[in-house]
């Protein structure tokens, strides 16, 4: 969208005005995250920049809220709960989801559309409805308020993401490779693990990242399904925001932002690798 040399004044003005508008919108997207980070180093229990902070006075900054986050049992308990729930839910979602995605990518699948609609539905149905239904049903079968109840629910919520990313990778998968493996005498299991799996691995991993973040961030379902023993980090943040807003929340938020930056970087690397494998280099 480079401006041609013959552009009129009006076009020039619009060209730069448009970029300014876009810049403002992107600023709106990113600013809240950028504001949280410095505020979390606030030495006071305020949620706004103190005069000391604005003067860049070191006395205005401290790691006090981080100390609280990493030592207070109110925050450490939920953090470990989150770390105990999310990986197991992810594992379950990835194992079942990858298997099903391989099945769905076969050339003849009866009722493919209907099956797909059912498998994707946990992503579409509003969380409050999933939470309500699971709460009613899991209390009937004794899973409400248990660790496994939360894990099952989170796995169900993460599955659509695994299905979507893995089927997307399988679309670009060259089927003649499995045929070649079969013609050379490899059984279906061996073909899958040594030929297909390494090639679709980027899709599987990015599906796993999605499933992980879905469980790690999820708050509605866990609030209904979990008991106090399953209180997760987002749940604790929710309580903190609703009842007694403490600046430790900002430290927790900054830690979570760092986690999402790591996840995003991992995904970007995977995407590049995937494109390279398919022979499509970016640029």
């Amino acid at each position, binding site marked *: 969208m480079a401006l041609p040399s013959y552009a009129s004044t009006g076009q020039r003005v619009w060209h730069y005005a448009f970029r300014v508008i876009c810049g403002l919108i992107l600023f709106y997207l990113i600013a809240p995250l950028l504001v949280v980070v410095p505020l979390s180093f606030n030495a006071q229990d305020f949620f706004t920049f103190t005069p000391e902070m604005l003067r860049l006075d070191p006395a205005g900054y401290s790691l006090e809220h981080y100390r609280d986050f990493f030592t207070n049992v109110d925050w450490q308990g939920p953090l470990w709960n989150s770390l105990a729930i999310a990986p197991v839910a992810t594992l379950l979602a990835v194992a079942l989801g990858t298997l099903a995605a391989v*099945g769905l990518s076969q050339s003849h699948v009866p009722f493919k559309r209907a099956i797909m*609609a059912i498998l994707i539905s946990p992503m579409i149905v509003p969380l409050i409805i999933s939470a309500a*239904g699971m709460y009613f049903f899991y209390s009937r079968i004794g899973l409400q308020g248990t660790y496994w109840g939360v894990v099952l629910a989170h796995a*169900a919520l993460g599955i659509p993401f695994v299905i979507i990313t893995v089927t997307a990778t399988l679309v670009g998968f060259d089927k003649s490779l499995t045929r070649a493996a079969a013609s050379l005498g490899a059984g279906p299991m061996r073909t899958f693990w040594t030929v297909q799996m390494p090639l679709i691995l980027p899709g599987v991993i990015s599906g796993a990242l999605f499933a992980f973040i879905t469980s790690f*961030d999820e708050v*509605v379902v866990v609030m209904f399904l979990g008991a106090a023993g399953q209180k997760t980090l987002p749940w604790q943040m*929710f309580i903190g*925001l609703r009842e007694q807003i403490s600046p430790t929340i900002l430290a927790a938020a900054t830690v*979570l932002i760092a986690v999402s930056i790591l996840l995003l970087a991992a995904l970007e690397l995977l995407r590049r690798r995937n494109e390279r494998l398919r022979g499509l280099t970016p640029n």
Partner: protein
Amino acid sequence: MADATVTGGMPAGLGARGAAATPGPMVAADGTPLKASLARSLRRQKMRALLLIAPLLLFIVVSFVLPIGDMLLRSVQNGIVPDTLPRTVVALRDDPAEVPGEAVFEALYADLVVAEEYKVHTQLGSRLNYEMGGASSMFRGAGRAVGRFGTDIYAEQFEDADPALVDPARWAVWMADPAVREALPRTADAYDAWAGFTAELGGDDPAAEELGDVVYAALYRDLASGAQAPGLPAVDVAGFESVSLRDEFIADDAGWGEPAIWDLLRTFSPRVTAGYYLNAVDLQMGPDGVEMRPEGDRIYLQLFVRTMILSVTITATCILLGYPVAFLLASLPMRSANLLMILVLLPFWTSLLVRTSAWKVLLQQQGVINDLLVWAGLIGNDGRLALINNQTGTIIAMTHILLPFMILPLYSVMKGIPPTYVRAAKSLGANDWTAFWRVYFPQSIPGIGAGSILVFILAIGYYITPELVGGTKGVFISNRIAYHISDSLNWGLAAALGTILLAVVLLLYWAYDRMVGIDNVKLGG
């Protein structure tokens, strides 16, 4: 796949003419006809695919679809009145009067004596209290009162007439005799109920315990209506002093003499009810059929409308803000577009709670935005804007949260629009605006559609953000559902509201599937 070898050189057509031209039916290497062999191979492929999918499908059905089904069931299920007051429900069927007669009150008496023992009448009361204020205290009061009702006079009179009639051991024998049971149906029923809770709750032997008044009241009623029981001592009850249970109930609480409670019990007598749905759209069952609830009780329609309006507003804001950004990203060279894309993807990947807390901090009266505006002199220190705990807060925060869901599909559609069309339009004399509006914009509409449906679906079901930044005016229907599940415990109503919301979402999901295709959903570019 390669197990079907064609014999006879030419790949002949399968139509009638083709078949006539070849010497015989084509067969595979093992001698079976090719058609059958292919069909078998296809069947095997289908089976294999289904076997791979089956574990996940089973998992989703158990962990997700059945719970949703359970919710649908609960929205129409209504066992509490027929379960707690089974005799009253039957008796009410034969009594169309506004305030029913003695027979119904006798049934209610028997039901409440049993319910009081099992302590379930208060549950019924609090359930009916959602429909009619005061029902809870009526049932609690009646539960306490049934023990003090004047029905003890029957036991004394029967004892005076024949002491055998108050002997529990004899009763146990009589009540085991089908002929007696048939002759005294009410008595048998009351005795069973009494014996049931005596054995179950007290752990006592009914054959050794003094019978409850409820049994004698039933016996009086049976005998007074002319029943002759074989084996029982003959008693003439015509001279007995009797007590009107109707009067006893009304003396305890005048509400029992009003039609309102009886209308309510009749409405909730069937096991399947539309009552929750009527409630969910501010209707109720009146004496003359369905009618609007009183003005002050109408909240749900308004809430549904508000949810819709706010979701549409958020979707529109997302289009307005997302379109220019997607356009810029699609027209920039790959390298700088990828860089700017990070600004879109980072919020997308950041925890919802993080973004909500950021907005909570930013939008407060003493928060960063108000501070900035005061510092810039745009508003006075006493004129700080109320940006949070109202609809403005909900719209600002939710637009921010959902904006990436608009930008990503728009971007992927815009990437696919060839730039040559716009160039052609310009070379034919169109100015920038006409070229954009008549040529580029129509091609980007599928992206707007996909993004809008996605954002709208996500918006109408939101719970967390409105709960935290919406105050009372900026909450959605989801917040009300959560309230009914965890605070008011009116699960049926929560299920009905949820089902209505689900129907709206599924309709949009179907539209999205038709327009974009579920398997074309893109995640994160």
